[in-house]
């Protein structure tokens, strides 16, 4: 009879697949996460060491110097100070990236925020108590950043205009506008070089007692934590994510897509402005013409590595801050140009992406090797077997 497999149908169903996460999952996850963050760093540092050896330099010297100048003594405090604007920048980028919106106008948004802080700062501090002045300056900087996103936001929300182009264009324009402001209304007439007035030393953000880390660091950390909560646990965060993953679905489920686009742009710009305020009031105190720290470029790869998860961004940024603070002197000590650090950062990015990727495959229950690679490895064997 045809139904040959009838008896097999009666046999018990295939064993249930193992549940995606077992009971001990949590602990395992922690270990895995730890391993996954550590391994790429170690690999990158090893690769960097090989490179140093090739260049005839001592890796031991180099890395111990990075540690020495980036962490030891008071140097970790310098690293922490560098983290403050980077963290806020990361927060600003995560807000839009989660919605799959590309705000690449961060340079202008930052500089405009910075310029307005130093532009109005001295006057504010002269006329208002410090807390009021801080609050107002933070808001001014935030607004400066936010306002600079409005045109791309409206174009994207109403006409779907590609925001990669518009934000970049606005960035080029905004950088020039910031320069014009520095050389024009906000220039310090008493100094020969084009730079703004300086915020009085005493009016800078106070330090965390016992350190020379300004409280802006704590502000940045706080904002990042709150934002992480907002993005992962609230309806706002989920709407953002739905839109980011599938804009058509967002429209279908009744999310007000225009409002979402505009508000995430504005929030992003605002946070970038705030990062400028924190950085200027905590560290720089003035802006000179043509200055552009371009924190966004620094932070973008880490934001992606952290898979747009702000908690995960924190250690990445900390790591980068240490490397960057310690690296300048460390490269000098082995008589290499500081640009060598770029190579190290690139290596770290590479290895982190690779390990992230392997981890994700693992999670999906796949082989560590991709299909393409496996085939590439298998192909020669296959050919041989096939040949007559």
């Amino acid at each position: 009879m045809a139904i040959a497999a009838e008896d097999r149908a009666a046999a018990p169903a295939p064993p249930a697949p193992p549940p995606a996460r077992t009971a001990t999952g949590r602990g395992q996850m922690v270990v895995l996460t730890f391993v996954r963050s550590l391994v790429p760093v170690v690999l990158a540092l090893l690769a960097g060491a090989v490179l140093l050896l090739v260049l005839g330099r001592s890796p031991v010297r180099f890395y111990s110097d990075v540690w020495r100048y980036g962490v030891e003594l008071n140097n970790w405090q310098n690293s922490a100070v560098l983290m403050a604007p980077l963290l806020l920048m990361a927060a600003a980028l995560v807000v839009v990236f989660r919605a799959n919106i590309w705000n690449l106008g961060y340079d202008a948004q930052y500089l405009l925020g910075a310029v307005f802080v130093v532009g109005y700062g001295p006057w504010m501090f002269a006329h208002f108590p410090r807390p009021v002045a801080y609050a107002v300056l933070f808001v001014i900087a935030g607004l400066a950043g936010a306002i600079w996103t409005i045109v791309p936001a409206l174009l994207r929300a109403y006409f779907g205009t590609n925001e990669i182009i518009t934000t970049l264009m606005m960035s080029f324009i905004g950088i020039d506008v910031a320069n014009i402001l520095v050389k024009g209304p906000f220039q310090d007439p008493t100094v020969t070089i084009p730079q703004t007035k300086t915020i009085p030393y005493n009016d800078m953000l106070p330090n965390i007692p016992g350190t020379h880390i300004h409280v802006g660091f704590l502000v940045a950390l706080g904002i990042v934590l709150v934002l992480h909560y907002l993005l992962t646990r609230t309806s706002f965060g989920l709407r953002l994510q739905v839109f980011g993953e599938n804009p058509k679905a967002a429209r279908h489920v009744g999310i007000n897509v225009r409002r979402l686009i505009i508000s995430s742009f504005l929030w992003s710009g605002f946070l970038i402005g705030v990062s400028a305020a924190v950085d200027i009031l905590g560290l720089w105190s003035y802006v000179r013409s043509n200055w552009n720290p371009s924190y966004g470029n620094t932070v973008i790869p880490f934001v992606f590595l952290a898979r747009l998860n702000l908690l995960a961004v924190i250690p990445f940024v900390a790591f980068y801050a240490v490397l960057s603070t310690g690296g300048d002197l460390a490269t000098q000590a082995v008589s290499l140009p500081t640009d060598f650090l770029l190579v190290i950062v690139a290596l770290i990015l590479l290895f982190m992406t690779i390990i992230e990727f392997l981890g994700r495959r693992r999670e999906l229950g796949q082989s560590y090797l991709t299909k393409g690679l496996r085939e590439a490895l298998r192909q020669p064997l296959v050919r041989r077997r096939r040949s007559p």
Partner: protein
Amino acid sequence: MTAVLAAASGLFTQSFVTALIAGGVLASIPLMFTAVGEAISERSGVLNIGLEGMMLVGAYTGFLGAYEAHSMWVGFLTGALGGGVAAALMVVLSVRMGLDQIVIGIAITLAGEGITSVLQQAQFGGAYPRLPAYPQVAIPGLDSIPILGKSLFDQPLVVYFGLGLVAAVAWMFSRTRWGLELRAAGEKPEALDAAGVSVLNTRSYATLATGALAGVGGAYLSVIAAGTFTPFMTQGQGYMAIVIAMLARGRPVWVAVASFVFGISLSLSTALQLTGINISADVINMLPFAAIMLALVIFARSAYLPPALAVPYVRGAR
């Protein structure tokens, strides 16, 4: 004001206008090479953020080749090779393994910046050797057109190659199997795969071509435009090329037009200054960007991006 006009009146001689246009063409060529390259990979679904790094590597290897071999052509060849090698990294990691194109692209840019700077110092110990000027080739007949003749048709040979390349790529996109496959890889890779063409190979070749073209663009900068290599000499032109490719919606002829507009606007900003007009360079500088922004606001056109851009292709994934 009268002084300005007086200064300007003596300025715009025929030879000066010729030089301005020629300068604009020269400035636009590296952008054009690179942006045409980006158009290729974008069409195939690979967003190549590493362009800046590939250009720098090309600039360095191109300079080295031209310098050592005393030949501009060797320079372009080594430049293309250098850019291609940098792109090969992208091929292996992003196209083949499917790693995040943006992170890898940024890593390539960083590595390109760092390595060329380190090597430049190691190789030349801080000296900045320079290359001789290379001959220009006039196209007989055309070069006798007043002003335009000398500015457009008396250029280094590689400029004509660049223009030829634009035409060739445009032809390739519309008339050849490769063009069709590239577009398919960016539009709907699973469809290309189902049609029996390897998406990964298509994207790999596209990325390699992009790297080689960015390398030529970089080599052009060091070999022709500057005659020397200085670290970070691309000055963000790689990113500019991405914008141009997007603005041009990946169409080579428009890429060329956009690059040319940028080059000419650079030239014009110099000309404006030479008239003695007292406008800050910041204002002059932002004019082209402001113009693009204005155009985008008025026409509100969305630059079309292939739907599968920057999405790694994994066969059979859901």
